[in-house]
């Protein structure tokens, strides 16, 4: 792994990027929170020529979870004697009124876990209902599906199913008319599951260079170089820089498990709106694991983002965090208005802390 963090390799890559750089503005979007972490963690934006911009797309599963899903979780854990489990970064995201962190401080039983297996363990030890707030893309969906398949006799366990899938979101962004994106860095983790084919279709249809990238700093820089080469050669291919992990057809077993448990549905993305065929819902035969059906709690239609908040525009790459009227004023990491300010993968959080 060391060559992917090796300073002299980094310098060589930067030299190659500078050699090929046309000085025109190039905007490259990635759609993965971990890529943003790599970019920030290693200070990659400062290493690249100024005309090459790395844009943070809708790749943070926390940021795109809709306010109504959070409101549902808050209402459920507040009104019923239940245990709600969630991944850490979901904890502080505001719903319409409260976040899970706030409702916990008012006495509700909200627990932070690392993986769904912990939620199952909790459920086995209690008579209370345990509900897991299940978010994430194709990467997290297989483990959730596998646990559901293995624990079908478990009577006190269900999930709030907030899973989304990436290719339809990329397709949606590429279909927007006024978007200026010259290429995509495609998500390595998601691709280990889904393989390369979905990007091949998108690259061809929308005539954009795409590169599946790993998560070390030199992976990302190499992916930028590959995109620049494609632009120079007027190509639009889906290439796989992360081929030490991502296979062409992906992980077929994981795909089968997802298909056994979930089916595709339309899904609302916070700040963006409904994207057709971009969500996963539990199949009817697993309806008893669906917290929404199980508890019959109704919530009013939630306001996804405060009027004026630019989270959606930012995730589409159409605005910068600094363009938002709330940025740094009423919206700060300690007291976020929009989801992009909460998650350490969120574009606003990063802009606020690293500007």
């Amino acid at each position, binding site marked *: 792994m060391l060559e992917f963090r090796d300073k002299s390799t980094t310098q060589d890559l930067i030299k190659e990027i500078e050699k090929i750089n046309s000085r025109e503005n190039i905007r490259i979007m990635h759609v993965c929170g971990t890529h943003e972490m790599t970019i920030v963690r290693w*200070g*990659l934006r400062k290493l690249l020529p100024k005309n090459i911009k790395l844009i943070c797309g809708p790749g943070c599963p926390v940021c795109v979870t809709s306010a109504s899903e959070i409101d549902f979780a808050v209402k459920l854990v507040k009104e019923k004697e239940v245990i709600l489990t969630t991944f*850490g*970064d979901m904890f502080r995201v505001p719903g319409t009124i409260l976040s899970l962190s*706030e409702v916990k401080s008012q006495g509700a039983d909200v627990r932070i876990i*690392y993986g769904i297996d912990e939620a199952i363990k909790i459920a086995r030890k209690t008579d209370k209902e345990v509900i897991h707030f299940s978010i994430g893309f194709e990467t997290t969906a297989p483990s959730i599906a596998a646990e559901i398949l293995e624990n079908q006799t478990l009577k006190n366990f269900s999930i709030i199913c907030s899973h989304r899938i990436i290719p339809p979101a990329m397709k949606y962004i590429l279909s927007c008319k006024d978007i200026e994106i010259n290429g995509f860095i495609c998500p390595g983790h998601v691709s280990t599951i889904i393989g390369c084919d979905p990007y091949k279709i998108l690259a061809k249809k929308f005539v954009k260079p795409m590169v599946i990238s790993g998560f070390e700093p030199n992976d990302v820089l190499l992916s930028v170089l590959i995109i620049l080469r494609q632009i120079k050669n007027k190509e639009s291919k889906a290439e796989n820089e992360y081929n030490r992990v991502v296979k062409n057809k992906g992980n077929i077993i994981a795909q089968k498990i997802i298909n056994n448990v979930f089916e595709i549905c339309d899904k609302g993305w916070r700040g963006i709106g409904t994207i057709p065929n971009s969500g996963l819902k539990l199949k009817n035969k697993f309806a008893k694991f669906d917290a929404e059906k199980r508890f019959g709690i109704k919530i009013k239609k939630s306001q996804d983002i405060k009027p004026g908040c630019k989270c959606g525009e930012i995730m589409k790459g159409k605005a910068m965090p600094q363009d938002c009227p709330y940025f740094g004023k009423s919206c*700060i990491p*300690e007291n976020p208005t929009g989801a992009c300010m909460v998650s350490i993968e969120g574009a606003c959080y990063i802009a606020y802390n690293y500007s």
Partner: protein
Amino acid sequence: MTNMKITKKTIEELRKKGSQRIPKTIQLSQGAGGSMMESLIENVIAKKLEIKSSFVSSGIDRLEDAGIIDLGNIKLAFTTDGCTVDPMFYPGGSLGSLSVGATINDLVVMGAKPIAISFGLMLEEGLPLKILEKTLDRMAKVCKEAGVPIITGDTKVMEKGKIDKLVINTAGIGIIEGDIISDYGAKPGDKILVSGTMGDHGISLIALRFGFKTSLKSDEAQLWGMMKQLFKIKGITSAKDATRGGFSPNINELARKSNVCFYVYEDKIPIKPEAKKLGEVLGIDPLSTACEGKIIMTVKPDKADEILAAMRQNKYGKEAAIIGEIKKEPKGQVILETEIGGKRVLHTPVGELYPRIC
């Protein structure tokens, strides 16, 4: 697309404004050593309790590791710590040893020689006597090693369920025979030192929670022995023990209070390879998780090598390192030059450390 330019000054002003919004009920994040905790302490606790006295040369408003009582020819440092850890015993340490070690370290980073310690024990009904005895043994062991007596205390028993097993409060008093060391004293040109590897305590506890087998253990230590040698050399301009929240929030606090830039080379920061690897697996940054026996300090440039050598002589400072230097600008910030040569601002984490989901 408009591109509003946000200057450093406006960001600072916005931060100040923003930090005044405090949740109506206390949240766990407010005890995690990040910016939410700083905001609670600065805007609620210190504000309500600030009372001036002619004997006090550094009071609660300065938010130092200890307050300073100035009696003319005698200067005393006075500090206190509340301790609760789950589990109570862990590889490398325990609640008991931590409670006194933390107080001793708060005194020594102010330039003081610890001279006496007090304790308050809050016990839950039903706590096994053996656990209490074992805890007291650990407290006594650390105090003996540092040569500091425990001279007074108080014990309360609370109804089962009203408190979690055992909570310890300690307070300590120290005498300042040389210079007072303050968070506000770093000057451009100074060198930045750390006394050893970062993140051992936090990462080892999280690894324990998740059942990872590791040789990593807590770095818990009282540092009077080491600091005593450094005081003889003189030349420390600021110091802080990197406890809650670890390296990031504590070095940021030094940068903010001294109003200078801390420029740090990532490849110089000592981190145990195992802590680095476990941190990556668990999604936890070793720079933002607690240490319990490490000091971050700035020293005059001409004394840096001598102080480093003296630190390395001590068993708790063997892996000490010079990790960077103080620059004038950007004021109040920590800039990290990454291992591959990129640059980023190292910021104070907001609240608790959460594992990232993907």
